[in-house]
């Protein structure tokens, strides 16, 4: 055997001198996270009319009193609180009941519930809200039309353009992720802990109260806060349901300030409001972070596969099944059917025998003939593939450094990559709008106005999810497997390629597919960064067509989009990825 010489440069690496790769990754993440936040904060203190006018001379405190002391802002705060609390209560209670039914009762058809509830992930908030507008808008909604024309009511039965409507629709939307988080929580509870209470003389009810509930409490509260953050950050549902009725929450108000800026530039004020919005989200995320750290001490996970005693439902079987079917119907089937129906009619009107007789695929051909559709579709594919691929590779590299290296700043890197989780999409879009405009001005490049602007924003937004999932996946790979490769003579990059990548393949593919699923349906940040045809993605096109009243065309696109998303969710399930989906937004 030839023993290699040992004066090669790579050998003289001192642990105390930094690995340049680690530093590079740290630097990339720092730039991606810190720069937009800094610019957002600076911008909030600027009275520059446009981001490009920004200079240190324009710094002022005027924006804050102007925005924060505006009575409208209190109104927004109030709306946001009511909407977030309401939607979270609706979503988490639905999800908790569903999770309890499948995990702790004898309800039949469990496998269908496990498979069915996550399918709701394939219904984007935008389409969910639009379907409910078609059903329940005060004048032309099918339900209200039926009420006035057939049942003889004087006015609308229900009005979806209200806080209540937003709470209901966003509540439905929260159910699948909350369900995916609650199921493992219920499952990981070691029945021996309850049995120990019984054998210590605990009666069932006091055991449930003192042991079961107390053990689950931190996890349950964490799930609730997590869902509240999602509700707080979402733009699509309040955008479709609240904005037409002038019911604003933070996300829609920040968007409005930016959208109106074309006529009356007030970017500084938008930033000042975004800072308040960001503050609320950061506080909520902080509590979430504190809780999940604490809940690790409450670990109730054991590897033993003992199933807890299941509650006999008896005569309650039927109401329980009815409840599950009701959820599936409201969250998945009904919106899909409504959009399908709308896409097939000539002109939108409530169902009747006559309408069904004249159904056609007219709107589908309209969509395919529509000039913007082709370019939007290709933009969307480019954006989605680039985002998913970059997120997957970058999170993998970040997690490798965080979990496996001795890099001094690995903790900071971990926390930094989790930070975007607390930044609402609209705020992120606004922050990067400033960054791109400044960057383009200085360098003469054209990032703003290109599809890459959206890719960058989404990469930062999803890196928190990607690294969380990847950290867990890498931790599962025993360190010995990697060291065995080193002592077998494989250099680090060969170890990465021959050991890590194949072992991590399911996680890598899973994260990739899930990021595709997430990035294709978000409209908030892409709307803020919208700058002509080259930046138009599917969600944005749906939004503008909806605004123009082309609801039938929106429905036709929506139906095709949902079919694609259903396929993706099923693919994810095939990859056994339910658990990590729970960690995503």
């Amino acid at each position, binding site marked *: *055997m*030839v*023993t*290699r010489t*040992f004066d090669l440069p*790579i*050998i*003289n*690496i*001192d*642990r105390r001198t930094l690995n340049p790769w680690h530093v590079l990754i740290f630097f990339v993440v720092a730039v991606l996270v810190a720069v937009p936040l800094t610019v957002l904060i600076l911008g909030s203190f600027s009275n520059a009319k446009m981001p490009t006018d920004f200079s240190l001379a324009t710094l002022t405190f005027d924006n804050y009193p102007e925005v924060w002391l505006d009575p409208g802002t209190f109104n927004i705060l109030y709306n946001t609180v009511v909407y977030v609390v309401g939607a979270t209560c609706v979503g988490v209670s639905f999800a908790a009941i569903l999770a309890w039914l499948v995990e702790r009762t004898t309800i039949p058809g469990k496998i269908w519930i496990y498979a069915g509830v996550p399918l709701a992930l394939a219904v984007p908030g935008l389409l969910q809200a639009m379907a409910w507008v078609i059903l329940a808008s005060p004048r032309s909604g099918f339900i209200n039309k039926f009420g006035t024309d057939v049942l003889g009511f004087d006015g609308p039965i229900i009005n979806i353009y209200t806080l209540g409507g937003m709470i209901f629709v966003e509540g439905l939307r929260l159910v699948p992720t909350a369900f995916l988080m609650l199921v493992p929580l219920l499952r990981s509870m070691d029945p021996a802990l309850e049995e120990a209470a019984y054998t210590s003389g605990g009666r069932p009810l006091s055991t449930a109260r003192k042991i079961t509930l107390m053990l689950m409490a931190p996890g349950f509260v964490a799930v609730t806060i997590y869902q509240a953050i999602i509700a707080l950050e979402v733009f699509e549902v309040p955008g479709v349901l609240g904005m037409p009725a002038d019911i604003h929450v933070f996300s829609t108000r920040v968007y409005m300030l930016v959208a109106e800026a074309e006529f009356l530039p007030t970017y500084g004020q938008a930033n000042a409001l975004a800072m308040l919005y960001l503050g609320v989200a950061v506080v909520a995320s902080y509590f979430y972070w504190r809780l999940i750290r604490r809940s690790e001490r409450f670990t109730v996970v054991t590897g033993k596969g003992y199933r807890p005693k299941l509650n006999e439902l008896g005569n309650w079987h039927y109401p329980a099944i009815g409840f599950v079917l009701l959820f599936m119907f409201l969250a998945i089937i009904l919106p899909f059917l409504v959009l399908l129906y709308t896409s097939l009619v000539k002109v939108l009107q409530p169902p009747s025998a006559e309408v069904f007789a004249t159904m056609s695929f007219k709107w589908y051909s309209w969509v395919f003939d529509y000039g913007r559709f082709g370019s939007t579709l290709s933009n969307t594919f480019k954006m989605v593939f680039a985002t998913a691929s970059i997120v997957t590779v970058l999170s993998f590299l970040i997690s490798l450094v965080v979990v496996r290296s001795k890099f001094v700043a690995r903790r900071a890197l971990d926390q930094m990559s989790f930070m975007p989780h607390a930044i609402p999409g609209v705020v992120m879009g606004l922050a990067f709008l400033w960054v791109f405009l400044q960057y383009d001005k200085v360098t003469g490049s054209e990032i703003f106005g290109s599809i890459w602007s959206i890719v960058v924003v989404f990469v930062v937004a999803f890196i928190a999810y990607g690294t969380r999932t990847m950290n867990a996946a890498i931790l599962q790979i*025993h360190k*010995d*497997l990697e*060291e*065995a*490769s*080193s*002592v*077998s*003579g*494989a*250099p*680090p990059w*060969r*170890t990465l390629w*021959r*050991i890590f990548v*194949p*072992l991590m393949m399911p996680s890598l593919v899973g994260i990739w597919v899930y990021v595709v699923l997430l990035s294709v349906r978000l409209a908030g940040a892409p709307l803020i960064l919208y700058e002509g045809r080259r930046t138009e993605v599917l969600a944005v096109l749906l939004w503008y067509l909806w605004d123009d009243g082309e609801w039938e065309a929106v429905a036709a696109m929506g139906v095709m989009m949902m079919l694609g998303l259903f396929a993706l969710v099923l693919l994810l399930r095939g990859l056994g990825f339910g658990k990590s989906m729970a960690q995503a937004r």
Partner: protein
Amino acid sequence: MAMIKIENLNMHYQTDEGSVHAVRGVNFNIAEGEFFTLLGPSGCGKTTTLRALAGLERPTGGTISIDGKTMFSEDRRINVPAHRRDIGMVFQSYAIWPHMDVFENVAFPLREMRGRMSKSALREKVLGALSLVQLDGYEDRPAPFLSGGQQQRLALARALVKEPKVLLLDEPLSNLDAKLREEMRDELSDLVKRLGITTVYVTHDQLEALTMSDVVAVMSEGEVMQESTPFDIYEAPANRFVAGFIGTTNFLDGRIEAAVNGHVTVSTSCGAMTCVPPDGAGPGDTVTVIVRPEDVHLAANGGNGSESGENILSGEVAEVMFLGEALECQVVIGDTRMRLKLHPSTRIAAGEKIDLAIPVDRCLVLPE
């Protein structure tokens, strides 16, 4: 010539509780073909030392050389990474790559070698390694479908396939059940001796250390307590730690009274005893007398007319435990309890007054 040379090896760790000095100035010279064992309780630094030798941990000081080539030197700022060291290693968890079959696991080190190897040569080497560990015919088996013992053999084949200069074994038997462990222990030491490969073995199991090794180094808290042949480690422990860690030992505190006829008289809590004289201690020094339980037997004739060359101690039996192969007793002598191991046919009962005889040359004295 020494195959492995470790000089003044030091290793510090940063943990949340502060800096830990895990290995403290350790020196080893391991001869070619030697079976060298690092023995000690968990946390004594034995695994850390092995990992430093493998290049998996970077020491904070000292030098390591393998076959005369410097692998690590703090002063010269040399640190050859693990994949460039001429070693094979078996991990405690075996670390069998689950995404490869048996053949690919073993072929891996060959495929990572510089220079291409022909397909047939590679196949021949892999099959040779597999047959060495008696895994012939398993090459197409997916690796996760092996039993614990088979995974162990596979890990060994993988470590040996490129015929490295040095084989490193990190508690390879600790995950096997008792019976299989005994089998693998014999097989492993046979194989290693047949191949004549220099082997460094880490274990906390004294039986493994004593049965397999040419040289045993007992470590505690990052330092080497004694480095010697298994026989000397047991028969002539250098200090209280080694005496206590290997086997069971009675410790009697005492003071040397006088030196007579090549022996010393020590006054202990059990009375005056004649013992083998220690190095570096003389009359007046406080010392510890160590007595192995199996060296104690019942005095003939109730202690009268015993042969000279034996210490006779009188006591009362406090506890008797029948172990099958032996009778383990505790006898109270003065205010000291002494453990002894007697032949199972011995008939004694708790409460009985008995006289014990201990050969003088089995009473070792350790200086404080």
